[in-house]
């Protein structure tokens, strides 16, 4: 046998190559998707929640909410799509924290893999899950009377924007999950920033119906901007006005929290 002390013999590469890094991301994504598929009850119950929201707003609150033009259900559904996409990110925080607690992240970190693949594979798997949950919400929406009013192109762009926004925010949840480190806390902590963002927004009610001080916040915050952009794409409205703002928000959140998340991951 060659001496173990010397590294000269067939010594491994010093860095993970891009190709290996992509393979790592694919491997981790597949692992997370398997986990999602193998906990079907979690999937079912987490899909029931947004359906309840649809029914609640469509049939309980609809009469009390006045929108400027069109049917309330058309106003409501883009908000529901975005909320669904956003809330899906909470499972990113929970899943990461659970991996951390279970010790499997230690195993991953002891392997010669790309470190960022653990986070990328997590967010991508959750994005794929979101595609299905949002698709389900589209079906539910159509069943309760929602109709697309755009072209095929703008409709797809609207759904794409909703998914992109959810993906960008899943990096916020990455950071939260890595920071709190236990799944129960992650579950609760993840929703704290979401509630004010989702409910003090134009997602369910027109901002004009809120008190003045709240309007100031509700008008500029990312959920309102993105819902308005999605609404413009799906049912009509000033697309240019909202879309670039929404894209800037999504891009900004993605970059800032990807950096924070990766930094937190290196620090564990």
């Amino acid at each position, binding site marked *: 046998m060659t001496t173990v002390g010397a590294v000269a013999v067939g*010594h491994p590469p*010093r860095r993970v190559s891009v190709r290996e890094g992509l*393979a790592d991301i694919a491997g981790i994504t597949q*692992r997370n998707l398997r986990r999602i598929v193998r906990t079907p009850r979690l999937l079912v119950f987490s899909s029931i929640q947004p359906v309840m929201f649809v029914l609640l707003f469509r049939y309980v609150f609809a009469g009390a909410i006045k929108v400027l033009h069109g049917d309330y259900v058309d106003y409501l559904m883009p908000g529901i799509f975005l909320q669904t996409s956003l809330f899906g990110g909470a499972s990113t925080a929970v899943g990461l924290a659970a991996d951390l607690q*279970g010790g499997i992240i230690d195993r991953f970190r*002891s392997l010669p893999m790309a470190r960022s693949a653990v986070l990328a594979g997590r967010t991508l798997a959750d994005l794929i899950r979101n595609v299905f949950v949002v698709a389900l919400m589209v079906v539910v929406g159509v069943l309760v009377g929602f109709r697309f009013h755009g072209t095929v192109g703008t409709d797809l762009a609207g759904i794409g924007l909703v998914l992109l926004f959810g993906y960008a925010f899943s990096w916020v949840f990455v950071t939260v999950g890595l920071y709190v480190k236990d799944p129960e806390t992650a579950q609760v902590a993840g929703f704290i920033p979401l509630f004010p963002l989702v409910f003090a927004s134009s997602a369910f009610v027109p901002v004009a119906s809120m008190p003045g001080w709240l309007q100031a916040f509700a008008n500029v915050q990312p959920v309102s901007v993105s819902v308005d952009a999605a609404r413009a794409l799906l049912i009509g409205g000033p697309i240019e006005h909202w879309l670039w703002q929404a894209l800037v928000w999504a891009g900004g959140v993605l970059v800032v929290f990807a950096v924070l998340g990766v930094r937190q991951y290196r620090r564990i």
Partner: protein
Amino acid sequence: MTPPVIEAKGITKAFGATLALDHVDLEVEAGTVLGLLGPNGAGKTTFVRILTTLLRADAGSASVVGLDVTRDAVALRSAIGLAGQYAAVDELLTGRENLELVGLLYHLGKAERRRRAVETLERLALTEAADRQVKTYSGGMRRRLDVGASLVGRPKVLFLDEPTTGLDPATRIDLWRFIETLVEEGATVLLTTQYLEEADHLANRIVVIDHGRVIAEGTSNELKAQLGGAVLEVTVTEGDQLHKAADLLADLGHSPPGEDLTRNLVTIPSDADPKVIVEAARRLGDRGIGLEDIALRRPSLDDVFLSLTGHGAEDGPGQGAGPDDEPASSHGARR
């Protein structure tokens, strides 16, 4: 001489006010097993995490197969295998999927990682359970799979952090055998344990740590020799006379007696001279202290630990005066 495979110098790590490691030096020669022995909280896991690149030391330097833990981290990771303290396998994946995932993350080709998964499952007697989700595995199977995962990359150096903690005696012996096989095949192993007989059984050399500091090192025989010749063990019939007995016999030993209240047992490090037994029996008899048993035996590592630290080593969970203490004999009984 070949350089040591694992080399650590002055490794120091603090968590806030807790000094988890305080200038730890350690070397492991190729093809040997080093047992890092210490009670809960001694710093064993922290040390392993630093050597496996999971954690950065505050001070000191360390290398494995000549690769520096910070500068050459990626290369180092492909040379080692780690089985951490808590079985780090995915509950929702099958055993095979777990191993194939690890193979993928070592960047093995598809055919090769399939082959290695099959081979590893075979070696660890998990073939039958290969396609079952890990959540259906017993604790022992899970631990075996975890050790298996650390072998997929065919590492030259293995880090096993308390590999047998929480396992029943028979499973523990099986794992010991397996580790012995790996060493016969040329692996170098750093193993942490709270179990004295585990270090005694598996390790060529033992480093004892307590509160982050190395307090002794050597072969198991060297450590026992530090204690002098023998240990006088006296079991009294009445528990409330234990302390009195210890006082009476204290001057027969060359370090203070230990008292084990659960077993009514006094242990006294002494010379290997039968006269000690006679004298002890006479003194106890004169005071009317009932004797259940009296014996002179070779010191165990437990005695070493007690005399080095003033407390026992095995105060972690899952340990006690049960069949756990004699895995060899209970194993024999099972067969």
